[in-house]
């Protein structure tokens, strides 16, 4: 009999807001700082043994200079692709906007590295009778998918699931390119009188790295709805029956009656259904915020 372990992973990238950064601009030279942080906790399915959140970050790292006057165009093109012109970057505001986009890719890579390390470490430490389900909040970036794929993990006893809640993010990029049918499907899911785990979308190709499902949990027994969500299952090298098995495992965890879920939100609108412990992770990241922002400002003054 397998012992089912659930690991929640949540990540956030802290940076000063735009205005704050622009205040730091001195003599056409500024540094863009960011500190990516990943928090995670762990519990055994059906047990009340939720671990305290653990935090991983690289706040010691040197922040990098995004742009300074006199920077070679070659370097700038490495940042942002060949379309950039040096004259576009004469004003610090313009430079900031252009380079922020590059910076967001950099912190996506750092987040991907941190998440992958946590997953690998937990898999290495797992006992023979265990099965681990990782829930990672937010959709899977190319970077994290690339890193996970390079590991070529044995997914027999491991499920990796990305959770997306924001209505605006529910549709995948691939779907955005497709016809209105999918729009209809999402619309139906959001408003229709259904409750199920639908998918995989947009196809069910067994060779896909990700299988996308939509989930609208059943209504609460005392009335009230749950928000629909998107589940992206990492399925590298898995066959159909195994994917189905994983899907059912996740349905079991995210069932409104499951002891491994929690929900929050107001009664007036659909509530958010999450794996148990997610809320605590959110709180722990909030607690970090003041400390991290102070660090960012301190680096800015150096």
């Amino acid at each position, binding site marked *: 009999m397998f012992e089912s372990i659930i690991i929640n992973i949540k990540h956030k990238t802290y940076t000063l807001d735009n205005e704050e950064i622009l205040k730091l601009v001195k*003599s*056409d*030279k500024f540094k863009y700082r960011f500190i990516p942080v990943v928090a995670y906790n762990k519990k055994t399915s059906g047990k009340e043994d939720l671990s305290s959140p653990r935090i991983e970050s*690289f706040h*010691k*790292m*040197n922040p*990098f*200079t995004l742009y*300074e*006057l*006199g*920077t*070679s*165009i*070659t*370097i700038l*093109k*490495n*940042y942002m692709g*060949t379309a950039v012109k*040096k004259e576009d970057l004469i004003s610090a505001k313009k430079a900031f906007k252009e380079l922020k986009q*590059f*910076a967001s890719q*950099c*912190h996506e*890579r*750092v987040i991907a*590295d*941190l998440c992958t*390390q946590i997953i*690998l470490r937990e*898999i*290495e430490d797992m006992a023979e009778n265990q099965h681990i389900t990782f829930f990672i909040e937010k959709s899977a970036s190319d970077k994290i998918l*690339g*890193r996970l*794929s*390079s*590991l*070529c*993990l*044995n*997914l*027999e006893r491991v499920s990796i699931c990305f959770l997306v809640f924001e209505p605006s993010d529910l549709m995948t990029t691939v779907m955005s390119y497709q016809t209105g049918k999918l729009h209809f499907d999402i619309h139906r899911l959001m408003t229709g009188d259904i409750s199920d785990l639908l998918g995989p979308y947009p196809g069910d190709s067994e*060779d*896909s*790295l990700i299988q996308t499902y939509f989930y609208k949990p059943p209504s609460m027994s005392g009335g009230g709805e749950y928000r629909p969500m998107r589940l992206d299952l990492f399925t*590298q*090298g898995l066959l159909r029956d195994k994917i189905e098995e994983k899907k059912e495992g996740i349905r079991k965890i995210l069932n409104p009656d499951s002891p491994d879920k929690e929900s929050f939100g107001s009664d007036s609108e659909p509530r958010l259904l999450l794996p148990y412990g997610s809320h605590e992770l959110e709180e722990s990241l909030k607690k970090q915020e003041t400390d991290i922002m102070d660090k960012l400002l301190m680096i800015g003054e150096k």
Partner: protein
Amino acid sequence: MTRIDDLHYMPEFVKNKGKVIYPSEESYGNVISEWATLLQRQYRKGLIPLFITGSGVSVPVVPTIFDIVKKLRELYNKKKNKESLVTLNKDIEELFKMLHDLSERGKKDRSIIARLLNSFQENSVLKDEWQQLNKWLFDEILKASPTAFHQGLADIYEELNAVCLTLNFDGLLIREFVQYRSIVEHRKRAFSLPTVEECEQFFLRTYNHGEKESEREFLEVQIRGDILYIECNAAGYCPQKGTGKERSIWASIGSFSDKPDEGKTEIIGQKLLQCPSCGEPGISFLSFPGSYKKEKDMQNMLSIIWRFLAFRAGSVTVVGMSGEWDPLIVAFLGDLLSEREIPLLVVDNKPEATEQKEYPYIIRELVKPDTHYAAAVGVDANSFMRVLKEKLSACCLPTCDYKIEFNRQATDDSYWYQKVQSIDISGVADEEKAKLEYIRKSINQEFSYLEDNLIIDKLKLSEQLNRFAQLGLKSYWLGTKADPAKYHNRYNHSIGVMKIASYLYDRAIANSGRKENLCEKQFLRLAALLHDVGHLPFSHLIESVFKELNWKPAGYMESYSHVLQTNDKILEFFETEDLKKKLESLNYTVKDLINLVNGCFGVGYLDALINSSVDADKIDYVFRDTDSTGRRISLSPIQFLKDITNGLTITPESYFAFSGVSAIAAQQLLETRQHLYQNLYLQPGILILEGIVKLIIKTYFVHFLNLKNDKLLGDITYDQKDYPDLGDYKIRYSIKSLNDLLTEATLSNNDNFELAIVNLMFTKIKACETILNTSFYEGLENGFKKLNHINNEDRLKALEDNMLYKKLKGQRKVIAEIIRDVEFRMPGAAIIELRKLPEYLSAADKRKEIDRSDGTKTFAECILVPDGSPDSWTPTSKAAKAISDSSFGISSPEEHAVYLYPLSGNLDNSYFRQTLNLFDKMLNKKGVASFSNV
């Protein structure tokens, strides 16, 4: 370490970096003194002092643009008064007013002046006034004599090989040479060149037979400032009439030998104006283009500068140019300073910023931000030149304090020794015998003190390079390791490269009538010896691994290169003061050595010998690897050594020129190298086996990476580099882990260390088998077994019989992405390798085309070859164009070879067939055509 080692000798300059210094300050004299020493030091290395001059250097003797506007206003008012008009031309008056208003506010606007001048030129009513202005300007220029600055600069040209880029059209520097320095028997040859074609021809010139190096020619490049032209104005037909037939005045002004003193000005003026075809007097006119046209012309000229001149500069001195109207020059300089890491000194008469006035643009952009090694002096051009000349006269650099002798028997590698010793010269004709004797003597030169210290006393070099077979794992798979006579390691190869470089250098120096320079030769030999020290185990394969993992080093580099290690290793070799001092006594720094190894030192022929498309490295490995693997090629090593130097010279601009027989030999070498890549280095079996090695290394790296190594994280925290992500950390971690495995491998019985490392990696991967995808692990294990099983050509052939080949048409990047996606989706099913043959003309990374801030994108050249297609070259073809302009190996860039190998070993394996289907499906989806499937 500072970026520029020469700055160690310039403490006062470094202290004043980013500042403006005035003559009243104590440091002023010291800074110029250090600058003078720098120019001399760099001259000894073969680098040139680059000067950029603006109107400020001719201010005392030639009208400025404001004088021209003032004159125009006078002429305009005179005409208006003469005709008693209130307004003659409303637009022109408006422009005069705008200029006046701007001047009141201490500002200027090039476009308004351009509009004003063009309005005069195009207005038929003001035709006489425009001609009067041009005549006045023409006369003023003719009357002008070179200033103290021009005289001093001419001295620096003669003594230190300076080159000047100028925005001026007065030709005063050239006049200084041609009119004031020429004597009847020896006329100075100096040119001010205004067009791209003329400049290119100048840079591409070679010595004619019988010419000597002492026949020097001096160049001033006119980078399209404003131009005074002469146009034929004959009434009837003249071939010189019409658009594009104008003659620039500065091009001919210097060629008049009469000194333009008072009485003769008129005569010279008439002569200059005279049309060379019809003899009628022409008219002069000023071309003052708008900013756009000017910058476009300037950009073309800067492309030529980047191709042929910029890399040779060791310092830049900008005099009398604020940069306000020439932002492109400032952009050019910004990139030049960053790319070449050279210092800049700006000389400006009135640089100080006030409440009304900012610093001049060039100081604002390049000095004040403190990002370059740049300072400014607030002094006029003539005074600066007087002090600089004084300091140059007082400067005395030490000479090499030890004798450079090659006195230890170079027995460490006998490949070339045996080649030349094996020739029977008994029955050979005398001339041929002399050639062979020369080769014997030159190629077998012994080790010097410095080489000995690097190799013997320190043993570092040999330890570093002895460990690895030159052919790496290929030597195991091809079975060459079994025969010690055929086996060679990186150390043998490095000595071979040193011998070849030394031999080619000797011949080129002799062919060009140059004096032998032992310091330079020693410097070259050291670079040759150290050219491979940066390679990690697995050499270029490890670069591909980091690239495929998309791990990027700090500093926003596109991908990891062994060059990064080369720099560190060379610094490590020269960490002892004794060796460093010995190198500095040759007049070179460690940074110079690193630059030469990277092919970007700046002296064309040295860079060409060490890191170029036809360098000593390629010559050595082509012959050595061919012999070692029994591959057949049409070149014979001794004949090649004779041929490659038959016509090899060094040009006046220090490029390597392959003419006649040497050009044909160079072409044959490139053909042979390409042949070896197809049939040896990247033959399908080798490609697949290397694909398996990459997969094992990648799996090892991603599984054993530890993101919490405090030591490495500490390094990242405290050094000054920029780290956008963890790529650099991961690379450092992996290199460290690779070196640890190497240490472990040296203890194993396997004498191919790279194979031993792969075995160790696989053992560690095997220990975590349970966490790996089962199909992936099975495939990896099968692949691993092949790596050890294949140890001769027959087994390699059997592997090649069991793979698929596809010829694809599409973008390389797209195909590479598809392959990555397929391998991710079907782990362990197949090795899919996209073959990338090297470019025919490989070039040092730093010399490759890059986009620059001034809008240019060019190679930096160092080799010249004959014109026309290489197939048409004959023994009499003379070097006439840059090698990158030749038509070597032009092939369809859209065609790609892909090889697929089933890791199960069975082409009919269902998992492999499924993978193949997915690959085809994805190729089809992305529009990649597959037109051959074997």
